[in-house]
C-alpha cells in the first residue's frame, strides 16, 4: 500500500485505510495470541485465554473469523498438547458468537478426516482431544463425543469378522485410531462413566487390544532382552488402571483443565447439535504411524528408587511422558524454546522427578525403532541446552541414563548403535569430553582386551565413540581426558600410509615418476595421463591404484588439499576408470590402502569420488560386501559410506525424473534395484559366515552384520514397501540356510508392510 499524504486523502478514504489497518492488526494480533497460548512464558495460560476471549468478545470481522478458524486447526496440529487451551478458546468464542462457534466445529470435524489422509497425525489427535474437551466447555453434548469416538473405533470393532476386513484395513490404521480414542479417555472418563455407549467403547478397546498382533514388539525394542512393552498395550493398561480407580483425577494436575477457570462464562454458552460423524475409509494411498514400543530406562529395576517416580503402568507416567513428547513435537526445531518449555513444565510439577522423564523421553525418541522422527543432532542439541540451563541437575540424570544404556549394550539393537555413538560424542564435545570413562572401563569384561578382534558390544562402543571424539577434536585432546586403562582403545593418529616408498614393490617406479611430475609446477592432467599410459610392465588396475595412492599421498595434508588434487586430476580418473567396475574397485583399493588408519578419510574421500561421478554407488555396494571388507563391517564408517552413496543416488535420480511422493507404488527403479542388491549381498555375506558358538568373535560378527541388515531395512522401509513381494520370496528361500536371516526379513515385512 503506497504512502499518501494525509492532506490529499478524503475523510472517507482515510477512514477506510485506518479500518483496514486496524483489521489487519487485529488479525495478526489474534493469530499471535493464539500461538502464544502454547509458548512458554510467565504469563499464566488463564490470563492469556482471558485476554484473547475479551478481544474476540468485542466483535469479529469476517476476515478475522476466516483467519481464526484456519489458525485454530493449524495450532492444534503444531501444539496438540495444548488441545484443552484451544478448546477453552472455542468455548469463549461460542459464548460470544454461537453461529461462528458452529462454523468452528464443522471445520474441525472436516479437518479430522483430512488429517488422516494427509498424514498429519498430530493434528488429527489434537483436534480429537480438543473436541472431547469441548464437552467440558459446554459446546458439544456427550452424545456427540461418544459418536465421534465410536466412529474412530468402528474399524477396530470389525475384527469380530476378521476374515472379512483384516486384509483390507491395516492394523496400523486401527492402532492409530484406537490410540486417538484411548489417549482421550482420561480427559472425559469421569464425566461419561456409567453411560452405556461409553462402556461399550471400553469393551471395544479391551477386545481390540487383546486380539491385535504385537509381533512387532521384539523387532522394535531397543533392548529385546529387557521386556520392553508395546506402546498401545501399555497405554491400555495405564488407562484401565485409571478406570478401575473410577477415573479419579491424577495427582499433580497432570491433565490440564484451563476451562475450569472460565466455568461461569462458559455456562452461558449454548450447546451445538451436530450431525453424526463418519470417518473416511482406508485407501491404498493412506499411511499411518508405525507401531511403537515403550522406551524404559528409569524404573525400579534399573536405578533403584527414584523418589516419587510414578510406576510405568500408572496413568501419571503416561501423562508426564505424553506432555513432554508434545513439547518436543511443538518445539523440536527451536531448541531454546523447547528447553524453556520443558524446564517450565518441570518447575510446575516440583514433587515429580520430571527431569528423569524428560531425559528418558528424549533418548527414547532419539533411539526409536524403526527410525527416529528427527535427526540425532536435533535431540542432542536439546539435551545440551537443558544441561547448560540446569547444570546441577540434568547432567547427573543424563549420566545415569548413559550408565544404564552402557550396561545394556549387549542387548541393544544394532539399528540404534550409530545414533547412540553420534549422540554421546556430540554431547560430551560440548562439555570438555568429560564423561564416565573410568566407570565404563571398569564395566568391561576382564581381562580387558582392546584388540580389533574383540567385537563385544561395550568394546566396539568405546572404540567407535573414541573415533568420533577424535573426529570432533584432535589426538592429544582426547588422550588427555581418557584414562590410561583405555589408552589401547584409542585410534591411531590420522596419518597416511604410502607403501610405494618401498621401491621393490610392483608399481613403485611409476609411482616415483608420477610423484616427480605431479610435484612440478608444470604438472597438468594431460601430462600425467601421458606418463600413466606410456608406462609399461604393469596392468591398468595397478596403474589406477598407483595413481590413486599418489594423489592421496600428495593431498594428505587436509581435506581441501585432497579435494583439490582430485578436482585437478578428475579428467585423468575419468579416462582411466571409464565406468568399469573392476577399475572402480582399484580406486577404492588405493583409498583404503593409503588411509587405512583413518575411517573418516576413507569415508569422506570415497564419498567425494561418488559425488564426483568417478565411483558408482553400486561399486561401493560391491566393495563393502567384498572379501577385503569383511572385518570392517562392524565399524560405523562403512555404513556411513553406504548410506551416503544411496543418498547421492537418490539426489541424482530425483533430478532425472519426477517421482510422485504420495504414490505408494512409486519408487525409482534404479534405487529399488540397488536396494534389492544390497539385501542380496547381506544375505550372501551372512550365509557365508560359519556357525559359531555364542561369545566368540564370529558370533559377535554375525550379530553386528545381521543388525546392519535390519537397520538398512528400517531406513529404507518406504522404498522396500514397493518390493515387498521380492523380500518375502527371499526370506522364504533363505530359510533353507540360516533361520536368523529369514526371521529378520520376515519380521520386517510383517511389521512395516
Amino acid at each position: 500500500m503506497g504512502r499518501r499524504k494525509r492532506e490529499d486523502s478524503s475523510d472517507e478514504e482515510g477512514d477506510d485505510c485506518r479500518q483496514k489497518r486496524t483489521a489487519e492488526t487485529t488479525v495478526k494480533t489474534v493469530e499471535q495470541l493464539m500461538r502464544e497460548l502454547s509458548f512458554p512464558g510467565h504469563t499464566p495460560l488463564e490470563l492469556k485465554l482471558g485476554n484473547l476471549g475479551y478481544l474476540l468478545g468485542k466483535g469479529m470481522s469476517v476476515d478475522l473469523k476466516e483467519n481464526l478458524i484456519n489458525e485454530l486447526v493449524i495450532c492444534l496440529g503444531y501444539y496438540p498438547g495444548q488441545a484443552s487451551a484451544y478448546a477453552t478458546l472455542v468455548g469463549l468464542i461460542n459464548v460470544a458468537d454461537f453461529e461462528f462457534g458452529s462454523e468452528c466445529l464443522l471445520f474441525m470435524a472436516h479437518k479430522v478426516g483430512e488429517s488422516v489422509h494427509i498424514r498429519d497425525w498430530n493434528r488429527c489427535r489434537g483436534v480429537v482431544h480438543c473436541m472431547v474437551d469441548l464437552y467440558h466447555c459446554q459446546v458439544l453434548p456427550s452424545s456427540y463425543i461418544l459418536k465421534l469416538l465410536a466412529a474412530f473405533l468402528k474399524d477396530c470393532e470389525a475384527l469380530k469378522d476378521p476374515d472379512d476386513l483384516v486384509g483390507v484395513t491395516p492394523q496400523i490404521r486401527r492402532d492409530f485410531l484406537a490410540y486417538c480414542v484411548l489417549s482421550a479417555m482420561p480427559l472425559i472418563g469421569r464425566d461419561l462413566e456409567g453411560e452405556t455407549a461409553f462402556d461399550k467403547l471400553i469393551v471395544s478397546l479391551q477386545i481390540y487390544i487383546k486380539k491385535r498382533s504385537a509381533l512387532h514388539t521384539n523387532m522394535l525394542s531397543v533392548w529385546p532382552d529387557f521386556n520392553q512393552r508395546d506402546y498401545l498395550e501399555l497405554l491400555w493398561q495405564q488407562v484401565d488402571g485409571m478406570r478401575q480407580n473410577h477415573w479419579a483425577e491424577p495427582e499433580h494436575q497432570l491433565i490440564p483443565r484451563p476451562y475450569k477457570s472460565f466455568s461461569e462464562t462458559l455456562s452461558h454458552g449454548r450447546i451445538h447439535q451436530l450431525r453424526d460423524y463418519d470417518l473416511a475409509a482406508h485407501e491404498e494411498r493412506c499411511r499411518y504411524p508405525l507401531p511403537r514400543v515403550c522406551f524404559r530406562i528409569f524404573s525400579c529395576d534399573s536405578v533403584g528408587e527414584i523418589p516419587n517416580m510414578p510406576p510405568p503402568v500408572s496413568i501419571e507416567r503416561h501423562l508426564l511422558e505424553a506432555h513432554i513428547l508434545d513439547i518436543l513435537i511443538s518445539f523440536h526445531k527451536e531448541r531454546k524454546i523447547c528447553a524453556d518449555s520443558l524446564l517450565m513444565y518441570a518447575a510446575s510439577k516440583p514433587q515429580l522427578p520430571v527431569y528423569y522423564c524428560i531425559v528418558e523421553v528424549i533418548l527414547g525418541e532419539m533411539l526409536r525403532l524403526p527410525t527416529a522422527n528427527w535427526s540425532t543432532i536435533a535431540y542432542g542439541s536439546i539435551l545440551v541446552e537443558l544441561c547448560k540451563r540446569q547444570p546441577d541437575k540434568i547432567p547427573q540424570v543424563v549420566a545415569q541414563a548413559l550408565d544404564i544404556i552402557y550396561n545394556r549394550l549387549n542387548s541393544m539393537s544394532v539399528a540404534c548403535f550409530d545414533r547412540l555413538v553420534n549422540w554421546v560424542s556430540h554431547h560430551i564435545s560440548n562439555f570438555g569430553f568429560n564423561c564416565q570413562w573410568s566407570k565404563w572401563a571398569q564395566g568391561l569384561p576382564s581381562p580387558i582386551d582392546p584388540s580389533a578382534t574383540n567385537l563385544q558390544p561395550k568394546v566396539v562402543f568405546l572404540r567407535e565413540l573414541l573415533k568420533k571424539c577424535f573426529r570432533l577434536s584432535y589426538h592429544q585432546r582426547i588422550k588427555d581426558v581418557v584414562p590410561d586403562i583405555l589408552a589401547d582403545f584409542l585410534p591411531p593418529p590420522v596419518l597416511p600410509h604410502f607403501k610405494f616408498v618401498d621401491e621393490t614393490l610392483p608399481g613403485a617406479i611409476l609411482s616415483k615418476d608420477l610423484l616427480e611430475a605431479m610435484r612440478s609446477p608444470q604438472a597438468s592432467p594431460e601430462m600425467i595421463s601421458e606418463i600413466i599410459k606410456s608406462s609399461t610392465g604393469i596392468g591398468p588396475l595397478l596403474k589406477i591404484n598407483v595413481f590413486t595412492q599418489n594423489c592421496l599421498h600428495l593431498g594428505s595434508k587436509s581435506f581441501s588439499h585432497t579435494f583439490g588434487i582430485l578436482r585437478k586430476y578428475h579428467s585423468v580418473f575419468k579416462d582411466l576408470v571409464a565406468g568399469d567396475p573392476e577399475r572402480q574397485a582399484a580406486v577404492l583399493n588405493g583409498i583404503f590402502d593409503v588411509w587405512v588408519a583413518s575411517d573418516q578419510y576413507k569415508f569422506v574421500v570415497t564419498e567425494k569420488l561418488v559425488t564426483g561421478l568417478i565411483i558408482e554407488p553400486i561399486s561401493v555396494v560391491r566393495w563393502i560386501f567384498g572379501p577385503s571388507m569383511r572385518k570392517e563391517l562392524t565399524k560405523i564408517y562403512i555404513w556411513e559410506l553406504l548410506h551416503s552413496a544411496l543418498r547421492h543416488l537418490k539426489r541424482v535420480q530425483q533430478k532425472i525424473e519426477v517421482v510422485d511422493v504420495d504414490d505408494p507404488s512409486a519408487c525409482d527403479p534404479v534405487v529399488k534395484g540397488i536396494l534389492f542388491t544390497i539385501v542380496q549381498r547381506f544375505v550372501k555375506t551372512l550365509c557365508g559366515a560359519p556357525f559359531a558358538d555364542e561369545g566368540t568373535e564370529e558370533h559377535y560378527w554375525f550379530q553386528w552384520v545381521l543388525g546392519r541388515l535390519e537397520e538398512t531395512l528400517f531406513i529404507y522401509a518406504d522404498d522396500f514397501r514397493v518390493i515387498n513381494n521380492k523380500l518375502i520370496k527371499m526370506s522364504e528361500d533363505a530359510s533353507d540356510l540360516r533361520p536368523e536371516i529369514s526371521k529378520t526379513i520376515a519380521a520386517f515385512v510383517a511389521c512395516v508392510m
Partner: protein
Amino acid sequence: MFASVELSSYRDQHFKGSRSEQERSLRDSCTLYVGNLSFYTTEEQIHELFSRCGDVRVIVMGLDKYKKTPCGFCFVEYYVRSEAEAAMRFVNGTRLDDRLIRVDWDAGFVEGRQYGRGKTGGQVRDEYRTDYDAGRGGYGKLLSQKIAPNTDNR
C-alpha cells in the same frame, strides 16, 4: 519470536549486487558462514560436526590474507537448504574445540572471500579485540602492537 533460521543483521559490504539481491540470495542459500573458530580447528573437525546435519558439498577455510593460514572462520555449503537450516538450528551457538561457534546464512562463496579483511591479514574483529584468546593468536592486533614496543624497551 526469533526463529533460529531467520536472517541476521550482518550484510556483506563487498557483495556485488543490490541489497535486495543479497537478501534473496541469503533466503535461498545453502551456504553458511561459521565464525569464532579457533585458528587450530581443522577442516576435518568442521566436516564431522556439520555433516551431522546433512551432506556437506564443500568447506572453504578462511585464511589469513598474507600467511595463508586458518584465521578463525569458514564457509560450509550443503546440497540442500533444509540441511543448512538444520545446522542453523542445532549447531549455531554450540561448541567446537571447546568454543561457542556462530553460524550464519551466507549469500554464497565467491573466490576471494576466504581471506581475512583485517589490515594485518586476519579477520577485522581480531584487529580490535582487547581480550586474550589463546585460540586466536593471543591479544588483538592493535593491542599486540602497543605491547611490543614496551617489550623492546624492557
